């Protein structure tokens, strides 16, 4: 269920946090996420603890491995709302320009499969900064529906940027 043609999803372990910290501090990931500080290991450990606090969890994270079992990225469902059955998708890879690789599409398909088929969620969404053209292209290609754009939601690179909300509903999901 967590394996595709190119990647395998597995549970994250504490030992992964050093790699995750480096990736999240790298420019190509930092410019796409809400985090604006550089992360240290205290931040990482607190985050790791916090995602294991609640039952059912609000965040379910996976490590992305290639077929040689090397960790190459992170994905997951965050802000899971079990009452209204929706969640945000989180995804990034260790290297840049991942958005055009077949691995990216496969990971999104695997996470949709998990969210819709296993968790019975009704809506999966992403919030993409307008500066992230690659991500907009990727989710458009994955037939996510653009619901609109929150005006001037973030400040980056000395100016305001909108954020775009894309979503996929269970009834629109086809394997």
């Amino acid at each position: 269920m967590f394996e595709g043609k190119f990647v395998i999803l597995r549970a994250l372990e504490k030992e992964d946090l050093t790699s995750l910290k480096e990736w999240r501090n790298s420019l190509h990931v930092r410019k796409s996420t809400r985090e604006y500080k550089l992360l240290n290991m205290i931040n990482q450990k607190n985050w790791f603890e916090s995602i294991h606090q609640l039952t059912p969890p609000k965040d379910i994270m996976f490590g992305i491995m290639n077929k040689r079992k090397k960790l190459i990225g992170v994905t997951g469902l965050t802000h899971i709302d079990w009452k209204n059955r929706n969640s945000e998708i989180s995804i990034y890879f260790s290297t840049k320009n991942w958005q055009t690789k077949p691995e990216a599409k496969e990971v999104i398909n695997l996470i949709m499969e998990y969210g819709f088929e296993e968790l019975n969620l009704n809506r999966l969404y992403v919030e993409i900064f307008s500066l992230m053209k690659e991500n907009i292209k990727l989710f458009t290609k994955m037939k996510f529906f653009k619901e609109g754009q929150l005006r001037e939601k973030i400040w980056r690179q000395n100016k305001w940027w909108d954020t775009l909300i894309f979503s996929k509903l269970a009834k629109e999901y086809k394997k």
Partner: protein
Amino acid sequence: MNQKIKMQLKQIRKSDLKLLIQWRNSKNIFPYNTQYFLLNSKIQTDWFNSLQNDSSRKMFMISYDKIKIGICGLINIDYKNKNADIAIIIGKIDLHSQGIGTLALTHLLDYGFKKLHLNRIGAEVIEYNKNSIRFFKKSKFKTDVIHRDVIWRNNRWWNINSMSVLKEDFNEI
């Protein structure tokens, strides 16, 4: 002008909590909040205590003619991106559509844009809450996003509208 003098935003006191529970659990208010459980005094007291050390929320009682008639404030305040959301409840239902909400909203926007130097103030409204959508539109809010099927109420899915007003729009009022 008279109305303006009568309307004040005041600090919330512990003694206001009973009123808040009563309003928020009432059939005129409850369906329009995304909260889906009834409040009791424990939840409300915890909420009150959590407000005290939280700079991301600034809440006020709305007083009109010296009577507490509602509550409003800014929540999800993001000082980095200068962004926040509006929360507003006029508990006294007979005072709806009298312009008091608009007055309170104007106060809040003024506080958010001028005092907190925010750039954008948002509001999230469930689609069936037509009065609130009209209310925010009147104060220059625009609909940014319609989140599809994002809330389950009364046996079906509903959209939520994300509306916002920017500092530059507000300065024109």
